[in-house]
């Protein structure tokens, strides 16, 4: 599904991704762990298409398509979803309006007619339930004045609405209380299908008790330096990052 080969990316003069390789197939769950400032969020941004990161080497293909040929919105419509570490507040744009525009624009890209309004509303209600997002929140502006945890729930809600093929969730667990963590993790699990894939970026092995990964990758200094199964996360918890650095 997603194939990243020898990816190098800069911001300004500074190289952040330094030859990263990653292969994600349909039906798989991957976890990426690694110390602060290693480039995990940068990786998510580069996959999303953020222009301020300049790719200097390497390739990313998604379902056979060269990602670098696609705009940010085209990548989304192809089925890539990013759950952001720091979701952006958009004052004055209601979640309903935002999602309706997003859903219909993605449908347009795929050659479908806009979703009838009643169908859309039913879908909103159904997906809100998955992450236990209250109506009150759903009526508000996108992320405006949301608590950290509410923002993360809203990311999963949007993912549920957009039904992506590949979701990259960047620290969706951080800042969540134990109930919210369970809700968010359940949300991710409920949305899991054999034809989609999830990449979770996390600092905590705790999340991986809920979302069980097929692969755990350790990222360090702009590269994936070690890959294993879920026991790797436990080993990491035990030994810390010094073990990787040395």
């Amino acid at each position, binding site marked *: 599904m997603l194939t990243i080969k020898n990816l190098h990316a800069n911001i300004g003069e500074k190289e952040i991704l330094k030859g990263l390789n990653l292969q994600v197939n349909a039906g798989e769950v991957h976890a990426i762990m690694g110390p602060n400032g290693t480039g995990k969020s940068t990786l998510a941004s580069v996959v999303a*298409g953020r222009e301020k990161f300049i790719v200097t080497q390497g390739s990313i293909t998604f379902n056979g398509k060269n990602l670098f040929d696609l705009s940010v*919105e085209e990548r989304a419509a192809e089925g890539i*979803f990013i759950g952001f570490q720091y979701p952006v*507040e958009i004052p004055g744009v209601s979640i309903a309006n935002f999602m309706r525009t997003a859903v219909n*624009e993605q449908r347009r890209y795929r050659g479908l007619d806009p979703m009838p309004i009643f169908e859309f509303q039913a879908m909103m209600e159904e997906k809100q339930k998955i992450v236990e997002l209250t109506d009150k929140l759903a009526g508000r502006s996108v992320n405006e004045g949301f608590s950290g945890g509410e923002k993360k729930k809203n990311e999963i809600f949007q993912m549920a609405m957009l039904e992506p093929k590949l979701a990259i969730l960047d620290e969706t667990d951080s800042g969540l209380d134990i109930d919210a963590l369970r809700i968010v993790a359940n949300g991710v699990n409920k949305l899991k299908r054999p034809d989609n894939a999830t990449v979770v970026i996390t600092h905590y092995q705790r999340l991986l008790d809920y979302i069980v990964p097929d692969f755990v990758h350790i990222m360090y200094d702009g590269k994936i330096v070690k890959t294993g199964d879920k026991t790797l996360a436990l080993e990491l918890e035990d030994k810390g990052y010094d073990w990787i650095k040395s």
Partner: protein
Amino acid sequence: MKFTCKIKNLDAYLLILHNGVFDQKSIRHFAPPKGVKIIPCRDTRPCVSTENTGNFRIEITPNTIVEKPLQLINVIDTVEPLDVVHAFEIVVGQGSSLSLIHCDESMNNVKNTIQTNVSIELKSHSSLQYYNLQNINNHSTLNNQTEVKQHEHSRLISHTYTLNGKILNKHQHIDFTEEYANSDVQGLYLLDKNQDCFHRIRLNHNQPNGRSNQLFKGILDDSARAHFEGYVFVEKHAQKTEALQNNKNLLLTDKANVQTHPFLEIYADDVKCSHGATIGQLDEDALFYSRTRGIPEKQAKTLLMYAFAHDVVRNVHLEPLREYLENLIKRRLNGENITCENCVFSCVR
């Protein structure tokens, strides 16, 4: 001549001016509700004892709640590029309330200069919602002068929208002549090409315990220019005044130009006053975030601009008018040129 200028679902009393002159036939057909008096004046002789000369005067007798809004339309269709002048007065009696929609609407394509003088007096405990809009062709100039006198515990909600026309001068002068006057003065300007818009707001807190809130927002495209001057005066004995002022601008090009000048002169010491002015671009992070959800850049920009503009429109209390404005703004932001050729008021001759 028959006009049926309508805002969808808006049930309003309609008053028509024709090239600035009060249409006598329209007043004959106009059955004013109880407590509303329309007093036409002959020629330019002073209408009432005030210094203002007016074509007519709208008077709301005390303790009258006018349920339906009053809509005043000045239809301009001169063949020659003439000056069109009209003036009127509104007096809202003690304890009364009124909503007034005032539009200047051109149906020709010549370069008119439209001068509108509005004089408003709000007696004690009265309230007025005043919505000023215009749909004039993009050659014409509009000079709009509004003067307001507010008595004790009176309440003003004033909105002015600027979506078309070539040169737009909007001056508002508000005096708090007694205590506990309360004003929300708002405006929205969406400009492009070589439109030129000038707002000058002067708000005088002459008496204690007044509250005012100015919010003016603008989006400028192409080489449009906007100028905002906001004066707030707080007299020495006007204690416990609360005066807020905000002017926010979005520039979509390098050639668009905004100048914003807040002037605060405060002589009282126990007051709460603040002002802010911003000139900026669309939020890059919000734009990127929207695009990662599959919303193409152009639509994402429109969405963000609409949200910016809606901050003003959401305060419109008359729902049909709010919906109408929302629709108008959406169309405007989508690049539709709203002129009388595709008459937004769906005026039928």
